[in-house]
């Protein structure tokens, strides 16, 4: 059919431009950066060019990959714990106004306290190993997941809950059949914010106490004034953020029913 062919072509063109958008923008920024650094009279000691950074990543790819895998693992582990406990906490907040009133200030306070300043305590109780990174990745990711899940749960209409209840559903079933699916879009919003904060948490943890991981590598490099390696680490940290975010988006596409956009 003519209409069908036209539609297929249109979809293809759209898919291509949309896929190309991010790389094109990234390349554009890199180009401006590459050209801008010498123009601004910046020493590569302050800000290396992307080309220098990429070369460094290529040269030290093994070193960087080793550290990156550590950070990635810490991020994912901390995030996973945050996702599970975050949704659990959100449920308790949702079901109990009293709990909400009591716990919210505590959560906010925990969220706001400068983590780096807690280094002595963290090191004392969690040591210099895996634990403090896991803890910080978890802690930073936790709060946005809780908030977004609560928002998502609150968005459900009472009528829907009455529907499953009328079928004899217990709260558990109502949760999985109705509450969770309808909270998913918001929940995933929280997870997306959460995962990028988990990366930051892991990196801060590595600042506080580590002998490996990208945060360690970056701090180590910058305390040696190896700006290029420091930036290389930062770029890889950012890339870790982008990749985990994208993976989450891919999961979201599969898990969440995509309603027609109301544009």
């Amino acid at each position: 059919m003519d209409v069908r062919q036209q539609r297929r072509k249109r979809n293809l063109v759209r898919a291509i431009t949309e896929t190309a958008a991010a790389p094109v923008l990234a390349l554009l920024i890199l180009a401006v950066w590459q050209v801008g650094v010498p123009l601004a009279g910046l020493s590569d000691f302050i800000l290396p060019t992307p080309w220098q950074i990429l070369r460094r990543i290529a040269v030290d790819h093994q070193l960087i990959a080793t550290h990156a895998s550590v950070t990635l693992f810490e991020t994912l582990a901390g995030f996973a714990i945050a996702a599970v406990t975050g949704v659990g906490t959100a449920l308790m907040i949702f079901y109990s106004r009293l709990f909400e009133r009591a716990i919210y200030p505590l959560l906010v306070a925990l969220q706001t306290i400068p983590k780096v300043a807690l280094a002595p305590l963290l090191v004392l109780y969690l040591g210099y190993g895996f634990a403090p990174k896991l803890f910080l990745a978890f802690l930073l990711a936790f709060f946005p997941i809780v908030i977004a899940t609560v928002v998502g749960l609150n968005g459900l209409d009472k009528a829907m809950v009455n529907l499953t209840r009328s079928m004899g559903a217990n709260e558990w079933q109502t949760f999985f059949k109705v509450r969770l699916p309808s909270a998913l879009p918001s929940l995933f919003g929280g997870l997306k914010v959460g995962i990028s904060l988990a990366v930051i948490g892991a990196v801060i943890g590595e600042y506080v106490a580590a002998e490996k991981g990208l945060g360690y590598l970056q701090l180590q490099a910058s305390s040696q004034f190896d700006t290029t390696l420091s930036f290389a680490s930062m770029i890889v940290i950012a890339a870790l953020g982008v990749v985990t975010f994208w993976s989450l988006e891919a999961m979201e596409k599969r898990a969440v029913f995509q309603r027609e956009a109301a544009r």
Partner: protein
Amino acid sequence: MRDPAPATARLHGVSVAIENVTKIYELRDGSDLLALDRVDLAIAPGAFVAIVGPSGCGKSTLLSLVAGLAPVSTGKILIDGEEVKRPHEKVGVVFQTDLLLYWRTVMDNIMLPVEIKGWRRQDYLPKAERLLEQVGLAGFAGKYPSELSGGMRQRVAICRALVQEPGLLLMDEPFGALDALTREQMIADLQAMWLSVGNTVLFITHSIEEAVFLADRVLVMSPRPGRIDLDRTIDIERPRSWRSRTDVTFIEYMSEIRGIFEARGVLTKE
């Protein structure tokens, strides 16, 4: 633990007793709204009771109380002699709005009560397919609610309630969004189902014709606050045929009910 007994074992109707029930809503502006005022009603097992009444008189409110979805303000409701505190497991409801889950296909929406009751899906698939065909939606099992028309959605909601063969079926204007002919067909099907299954049905409708055709008893409610103004037993032989609507007895019942309605003066008259 749920009873995994075969479907037939669940299929006798239950009794309903509504005793001196009042329902007061607290409004956002702080005022109270008396929706139901001392309603008394006893429904025998297997009876088909229709309720008509002006819009806003409290029909849906009454249904939600019987369904155990909202607490009564005073009085009590008993199903099979047991006070209703939460939804009774033998009850199935067709709500006034379709309440389809937008992320589930038509078939998965119909399977919702089956999943919740922990029954085996494959035991109920043939029945669901038969129901879908009966309501004229044979090809739509895999479609999503957003791809249906208003009337189609309502028909899916009806299938969802019927698939469980509930001992007490509560229906809130189930045929409101259907065209005349589809409606007639579905009314006939509902009568047939009720005759064969023998469950209790509480049926809210705006159509006096529908009420008289389907019910053993037609209740007429007064304008808000809802009370039961008339409780008329309909003595017409079963199965009733759609043609019988023009019979004298039928017309007489309808006129009586209309009369009660009109006497109460629902809207301002010119």
